[in-house]
């Protein structure tokens, strides 16, 4: 929102990142016969102490993006700047000192920890790898970390396999924050956990951010979890970011049809609200990232698609402050799929003051034919049940 290219203090800046995986033919002399375009032109930045949520369905490239920005996967093109340093083409050796600045938390706390290592060894590993000697010694530092993430420091010598899923995730978090990184890539950190534990871990991540000022790139598929933890949210589809916005702006005023569809598909824990909801049902399956659709990648499943979408790649446009979308016919000012509404409209009020006068934005949208697409939308309307069951 406030960041400009000249005064860039982002801890992470990714420009036009592409990660393609070759598809090889079978046989003795395999030839490359295609490319899986897992990430295809992603640009984003994360400010210090900020959480950027990266949300999308499986296969959209969100995890590959998370891993590529840490150079765990080699990018095909584009640039990755970590704390002002271009790391796109650095060698593994050159990267070692930079690993202090960027860490990762994984989805599966069972596979991410070596069951033959004690908690002390696991959390102490970053100090050893980076040859850091904390004041008071590694053991003390590790025990302080354990205490900080809600583990009993007396369990220093226990093995990772003796802990429950939630506790293991705490171990993984302690290891990630050990060297006070500037950014942590969190890949679905709570999706394998029980509901009551998810909330504990989200609160812990938030507290650590307040304490250490660490930034998160938070990769997840759960829209309610992403809303809880993120300051800004990017929605990915088939290797592209289709919408990127400040949290409240995205959830109260989603502009991309895909974001609408995603939000409307999340079942709400409220039977009456759920019975009265309109759901947008997407047709078909995710297209293959080997052969992505022409024009707008979403047009094959979009209920607003027109001829133009099949041909012309939509440009990134900023339609609300800091709220960008790549769509020819953004759903401006429509209630379909919008989740927060009615008495809870406070969220809408909280959206930052608009930099451009609304009339101008609307004019812009009308000009692009956006509002004209309001009719003929193929979505399923819930039964008009005003009375409870």
């Amino acid at each position, binding site marked *: 929102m406030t960041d400009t290219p000249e005064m860039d203090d982002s801890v992470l800046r990714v420009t036009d990142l592409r990660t393609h995986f070759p598809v090889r033919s079978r046989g003795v002399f395999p030839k490359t016969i295609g490319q899986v375009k897992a990430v295809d032109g992603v640009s984003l930045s994360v400010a210090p102490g900020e959480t950027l949520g990266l949300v999308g369905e499986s296969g959209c490239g969100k995890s590959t993006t998370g891993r590529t920005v840490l150079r765990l996967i080699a990018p095909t093109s584009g640039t990755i700047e970590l704390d002002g340093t271009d790391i796109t083409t650095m060698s593994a050796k050159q990267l070692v000192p930079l690993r202090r600045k960027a860490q990762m938390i994984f989805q599966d706390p069972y596979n991410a920890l070596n069951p033959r290592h004690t908690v002390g060894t696991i959390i102490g590993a970053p100090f050893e790898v980076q040859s850091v000697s904390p004041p008071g010694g590694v053991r003390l530092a590790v025990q302080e970390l354990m205490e900080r993430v809600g583990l009993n420091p007396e369990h220093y010598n226990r093995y990772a396999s003796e802990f429950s899923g939630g506790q293991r995730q705490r171990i993984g978090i302690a290891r990630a924050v050990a060297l006070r990184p500037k950014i942590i890539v969190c890949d679905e950190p709570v999706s394998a956990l029980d*509901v009551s534990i998810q*909330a504990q871990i989200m609160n812990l991540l938030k507290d650590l951010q307040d304490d250490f000022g660490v930034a998160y790139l938070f990769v997840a598929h759960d829209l309610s979890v992403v809303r*809880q933890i993120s300051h800004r949210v990017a929605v990915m589809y088939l290797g592209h970011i289709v919408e990127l916005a400040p949290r409240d702006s995205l959830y109260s005023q989603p502009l991309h049809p895909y974001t609408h569809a995603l939000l409307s598909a999340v*079942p709400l824990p409220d*039977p009456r609200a759920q019975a009265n909801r309109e759901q947008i049902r997407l047709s078909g399956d995710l297209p293959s990232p080997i052969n992505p659709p022409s024009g707008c990648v979403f047009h094959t499943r979009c209920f607003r698609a027109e001829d133009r979408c099949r041909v012309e790649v939509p440009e990134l446009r900023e339609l609300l402050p800091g709220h960008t979308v790549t769509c020819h016919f953004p759903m401006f000012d429509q209630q379909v799929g919008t989740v927060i509404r009615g008495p809870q409209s406070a969220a809408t009020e909280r959206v930052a003051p608009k930099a451009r006068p609304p009339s101008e934005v609307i004019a812009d949208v009308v000009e692009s034919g956006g509002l004209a697409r309001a009719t003929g939308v193929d979505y399923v309307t819930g039964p008009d049940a005003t009375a409870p069951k």
Partner: protein
Amino acid sequence: MTNASAPFLSVQDLTVTFPTEDGSVQAVDGVSFSVERGKTLAIVGESGSGKSVTAQAIMGLLDRRLSSVSGHAWLDGRDLVAMGDDEVRHERGSRMAMIFQDPMSSLHPFYRIGAQLSEAVLVHQKVSKQAAREQALEMLNRVGIPDPKTRIDSYPHQLSGGMRQRVMIAMALINSPALLIADEPTTALDVTVQAQILELIGNLQQEYDTAVIMITHDLGIVADIADQVAVMYGGRIVEAAAVDDIFYRPQMPYTLGLLASVPRLDQVRVERLDPIPGNPPSPISLPPGCVFQPRCAYSDRVADHACEGIRPELIDIGGGHAVRCHLDGDVRQAIATDVLDALAGSGT
């Protein structure tokens, strides 16, 4: 045999024990509930709550050498628990069916899906192979597989996750079972696919008048499809009620805790969630009194540390709403009102 007033499926005092080296584990402890045809019961719980084992016990999927099941599961007047393995196997697939989180647990990777669907028909119906294949084709069409004539000759690995889930549902429903148990059927799926699958199950349920037991941890799914809800914790049902009562008039502190822990898209975001402290209990060492007591914020409001020592019973508080809690009705109500107000308050 069938009593007009008796529910279609009636589970009474179902208990499942697994003997292990560390002593016997009581995974399910005295669970009772009933489901009518055409209705949906949601069983909600976290890992280790016994919700999946309950389903497996009803379906006769537990190995009798490794577990001991007691109690009753009356399906249309016949007790599934007392039946022999062969008898249960006959019921399974024809009168009752189950779908799982992972479709590959039900699909054989080496056989074409058409062959697997036809087999399900041939085992339970006296029809020709050709007729079975036609039923399979019809069912694939029903569950929304595009181009079923081609897809029927696909292997499971050639289908996407959502498609496989549909094939598994097709296989479960091909003999129009009267009881369908779905164990986290959409947990591995994306939200847009989840919405399609839930709608599909709902449509087929209406068509065949199926009784559905939906096992899930997702309160959104519960609100979406359930008529009745049973909340399980530590192998026991701790609260059971009609869906509106669970969401708008919950009583048990665990249910309140669950409702407070989930981030909600339909309300204004709170800066901090209010999670239940601690971890779910291990089934190997359950607390002697109330299973939820170690994590309960209100057990100090009960006299004489009753929550720690005395096991509370599941008590009907009226209107088919049952609660397992030592708290006085008034105190419990006051707590529930406070928590719900706080939740609603965060939305204004």
